[in-house]
């Protein structure tokens, strides 16, 4: 895929992965609005979704500048096909219960925390700026997930069991976050990016500390591992997500502004 469909520019391709992670996760988090366990949580998940959407917009805009296609954030979000999206499977996974969401958020925010901590010194100034802003947001996201994993893990017997099951269900999606692609390597060489594999131990150590404190267990090595998201190979859930996200925009091909 890197050779044929992705934008030629390595930086653009690299940024597109980060942007799509944030955009697609925004879609999933947005599904919680009016469905959260308590009203405070509708607000919190809405906040996190807004932060991620802000990251996605800044990054997509930058991609459009870099890749030479002149696409704006909306063209990139609404007019690409599934195989052109570069997000990891973790973020496209259909919404599960609240435990699943907190397991996903704990891993994703721990990953993003390590990622953006390093990217503040990216040679791409826009990315460095996004990272500097994002690091504060992501610190809050990670803390929010942490608090909930503690409450659920060390709450009632039911919540303990459900939180453990959620961690187990999310486990197959973790490895992909920390797997290097050729684009990652090229972007790291150029000083724009960072190798995901170098984020693994710190992020995992953080998650482990939370899981331990929550009286839960780190899942065993999962039998299967999601892969291919960065090459545009997604799960079957992705097409439905995009159908919903893009339908109105695509239904008005001649509309120039919304």
């Amino acid at each position, binding site marked *: 895929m890197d050779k044929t469909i992705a934008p030629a520019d390595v930086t653009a391709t690299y940024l597109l992965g980060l942007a799509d992670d944030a*955009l697609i996760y*925004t*879609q999933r988090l*947005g*599904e919680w*609005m*009016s*469905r*959260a*366990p*308590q*009203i*405070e*949580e*509708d*607000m919190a998940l*809405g*906040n996190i*979704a*807004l932060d991620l*959407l*802000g990251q*996605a*917009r800044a990054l*997509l805009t930058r991609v459009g500048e870099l890749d030479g296609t002149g696409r704006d*954030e*909306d063209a990139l*979000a*609404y007019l690409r096909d599934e195989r052109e999206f570069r997000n990891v499977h973790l973020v496209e996974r259909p919404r599960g*219960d*609240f*435990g699943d969401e907190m397991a996903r958020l704990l891993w994703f925010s721990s990953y993003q925390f390590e990622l953006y901590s390093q990217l503040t010194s990216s040679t791409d100034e826009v990315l460095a700026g996004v990272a500097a802003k994002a690091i504060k947001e992501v610190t809050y996201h990670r803390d929010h997930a942490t608090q909930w994993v*503690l*409450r*659920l893990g*060390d*709450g*009632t017997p*039911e*919540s303990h069991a*459900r939180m453990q099951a959620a961690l187990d269900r999310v486990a197959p999606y973790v490895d992909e976050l920390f797997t290097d692609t050729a684009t990652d390597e090229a972007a790291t060489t150029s000083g724009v990016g960072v190798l995901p594999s170098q984020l693994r131990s710190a992020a995992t150590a953080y998650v482990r500390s939370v899981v331990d404190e929550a009286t839960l267990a780190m899942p065993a090595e999962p039998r299967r591992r999601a892969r291919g998201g960065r090459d545009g190979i997604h799960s079957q859930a992705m097409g439905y997500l995009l159908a*919903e*996200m893009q*339908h*109105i*925009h695509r239904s*008005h091909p*001649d*509309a*120039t*502004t*919304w």
Partner: protein
Amino acid sequence: RGEGGDFERLVSTDGRVEPRDEMPDAYRQTLIRQIAQHAHSEIIGMQPEGNWISRAPSLRRKAILLAKVQDEAGHGLYLYSAAETLGVDRSELLDKLHNGQQKYSSIFNYPTLTWADVGAIGWLVDGAAIMNQVPLCRCSYGPYARAMIRVCKEESFHQRQGFELLWTLSRGTERQRAMLQDAANRWWWPALMMFGPPDTGEAAKGGHTEQSMAWGIKRFSNDDLRQKFVDMTVPQADKLGVTLPDPDLRWNAERGHYDFGPIDWDEFWRVLKGDGPCNEERIAHRVSAHEEGAWVREAASAYADKLASRSTGAVA
């Protein structure tokens, strides 16, 4: 303080009644019912707009909509807190919402069928809500009045955003303009119904308006507020190039107001009593979120108890 006379004096001098003050039970119950209904409306109101978060046709609008729905959750929280100062608690009020003992604004029983509906809700529904709510910023009950000040500020912002969304459509393609007109057609009359049934002239007899006015909870009649809303909104419709769906709507120079046609109160009562397009759906959605979240709330409470007993243990 402590004397029955304080309440009457406070209310008659336009002072603020505070939670620690004595107040007649009927006043307390009226406020609880009204504030709860208002809070419920914010919470249920998240659904028709939330329906479009995943499909917003631009990322900028998606962000605005997400923030707006989130604000509604926030308004719900302020209002439940205001109600709690009257000696009830949120979970009790939510139970009454879920089992139908308490109502929410019937406007949210209409579906959002197109993207333009998101704008129409901001323009017309929030517009009508603000008209109802601005006087409540001077309500005799302090916590409610203060919550309303904050709510109204954010609602005006939402109202302007809704108008701006529609303004953008009005400058757009033919299909975007048709979408705008269609939304106005569908939301105009339900918005007028938001002020409630007539309560002036003949209709004044037997309603709650008089008592609520005496208590300083209500400041204007439903009909006066409705007229103000029409007077404010018709020029805005002109700016949007929208024809409001009322052949009787015209400026009456003599009255200094717009005249408008008769409202279909049969529809109002029908929807209020349960035969609206989304009544079942709204409550079912809300109840299912509540039930699916029960284990989470229980865990949070158990964890808080553990923390408390641990810190007690540490002290002991």
